[in-house]
């Protein structure tokens, strides 16, 4: 019985949150890695693209809610998502037109584009705060739990409860669908193959029938969709607050780099590595260990390796460790 309780507590406090958070990081890191592979720079504005797309989704959700439209047990935000994606797509295509394209034509070095993206980051950040304000915003509705801790306890008769929030379930399911669609697109469609070709060897791609501006445009649109979905899922799971997306930049980049920049599979693996490390290291293991160990050995303290205040430090440490042993990341991204 204690053993089962230990597993349930572990699932409740570590596995479920880490899987949901990992899915969000994976989607975010996919956006970063695609830009890196195809446009060849680290896009620091990605966090704020997420914030912008999520903001548009939040606005649309509020409007739908005010019109009395909803999805029953599911969050209305899912209905608003396409609108958010369009808004973010518009934003990134405009920035590409007005900013990045100029530097691309100048054949600027990646480091210049990175700094340019920081400028874009600050501007996007300003726009988001200007439109929706810096404070936390609530936009989740629908059923809160797929399984609540109380129901679980009643069902199983265990002392420990396992709660799965609807948003967590939606996060994971959406992430699986999006990733499947993305890989199908990259591997099976001509445009997707063009993107891979462009990422493999830009010089050669330019000398084939591949139109680089088209590849760049499609890439931005996909990235906008990924960013909006990741941003909205994160917002649903926690709350929507513009600043948190800026903070997410570190774990997202850590995920992309750990997996190997430019490698989509790596971005997903990296997302889960970072999420699991962050959650396990900042979780107080007292309860789980209390069940798993005999009473005489049960720990007195919280058994928490790091306080949650330091959770962002975890990404950083993993980043350093992986880069020390495997500089191209787990899945051999491209090192420029």
């Amino acid at each position, binding site marked *: 019985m204690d053993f089962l309780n230990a597993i349930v507590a572990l699932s409740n406090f570590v596995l479920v949150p880490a899987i949901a958070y990992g899915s969000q990081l994976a989607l975010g890191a996919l956006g970063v890695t695609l830009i890196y592979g195809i446009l060849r720079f680290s896009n620091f504005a990605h966090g704020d693209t997420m914030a912008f797309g999520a903001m548009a989704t939040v606005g649309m959700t509020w409007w739908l809610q005010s019109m009395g439209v909803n999805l029953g047990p599911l969050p209305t935000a899912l209905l608003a998502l396409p609108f958010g994606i369009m808004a973010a797509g518009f934003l990134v295509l405009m920035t590409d037109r007005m900013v990045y394209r100029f530097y691309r034509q100048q054949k600027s070095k990646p480091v210049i584009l990175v700094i340019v993206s920081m400028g874009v980051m600050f501007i996007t950040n300003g726009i988001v705060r200007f439109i929706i304000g810096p404070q936390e915003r609530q936009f989740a509705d629908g059923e809160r739990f797929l399984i609540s801790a109380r129901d679980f306890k009643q069902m199983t008769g265990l002392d420990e409860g396992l709660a799965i929030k609807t948003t967590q379930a939606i996060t994971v399911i959406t992430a699986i669908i999006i990733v499947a669609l993305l890989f199908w697109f990259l591997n099976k*469609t*001509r*445009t997707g*193959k*063009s993107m*891979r*070709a462009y990422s*493999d*060897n830009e*010089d*050669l*791609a*330019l*000398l*084939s*029938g*591949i*139109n*680089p501006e*088209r590849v760049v445009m499609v890439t931005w649109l996909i990235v906008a969709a990924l960013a909006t979905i990741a941003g909205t899922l994160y917002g649903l799971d926690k709350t929507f607050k513009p600043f948190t997306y800026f903070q997410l930049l570190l774990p997202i980049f850590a995920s992309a780099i750990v997996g190997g920049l430019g490698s989509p599979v790596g971005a997903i693996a990296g997302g889960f590595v970072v999420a699991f490390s962050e959650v396990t290291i900042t979780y107080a293991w007292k309860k789980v260990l209390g069940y798993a160990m005999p009473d005489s050995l049960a720990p007195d303290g919280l058994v928490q390796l790091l306080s949650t205040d330091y959770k962002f430090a975890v990404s950083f440490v993993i980043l350093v460790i992986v880069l020390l042993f495997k500089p191209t990341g787990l899945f051999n991204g491209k090192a420029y």
Partner: protein
Amino acid sequence: MIKVENLHKHFGGFHAVDGASLEIAPGSITGLIGPNGAGKTTLFNVIAGVLSPTSGRVTMDGEDITGLPPHELFHKGLLRTFQIAHEFSSMTCRENLMMVPANQAGETLWNTWFGRKRIADEERALRAKADEVLEFLTISHLADHKAGQVSGGQKKLLELGRTMMVDAKIVFLDEVGAGVNRTLLNTIGDAILRLNKERGYTFVVIEHDMDFIGRLCDPVICMAEGKVLAQGTLDQIKANEQVIEAYLGTGLKNKEAVGA
């Protein structure tokens, strides 16, 4: 067909191409030789739109193409291969070839959803064509190998194969023979002659192997220090004083030294 007028390309103070003028006749196979560092690759890069010239003009059939980006030149039928073979390393050799033709049906979002049959038909035709090219180049067995993992010489063949996937007008080959064994080199030579005769491709070939040049090329242009020294048949070039001087110390007869 291609006319280069007083072309300059400077890297800082260094004049890699220093006032080169030349003309490529339609239907010809022109050889471009010259010692290492003569500026041959740089000249190719400027013509093919990879580098923009410091000054000068390039025209194709009378139309000014100076500074056009590579993919627009591709649409005009101007193709080139690289001195160091390039490939899409994560794709198979067959996929590499299938990437080449432009404006495929599968490129539009609309067709991706509603034009499945058209895409499938086109893919089948492309696949057949790619297999034909691989067969022609005697590398059918590599169709499903990742292009990143085949040998350097085989990558060179693949580069040539890419030009066969579309109807090119003029193809610039940069050291197709470098690092390729004798048998493969002959295969490449046969392919070039056949494409020239059957499809009317015009070729400009940079190559250090004088037997290869002698077999395929007329005329031959010799460059040194960014300038065109001489143009004529290979025998005329070999007898030219300036050319001999440019090669002095490298030894025109000693092709190992020249090809190094």
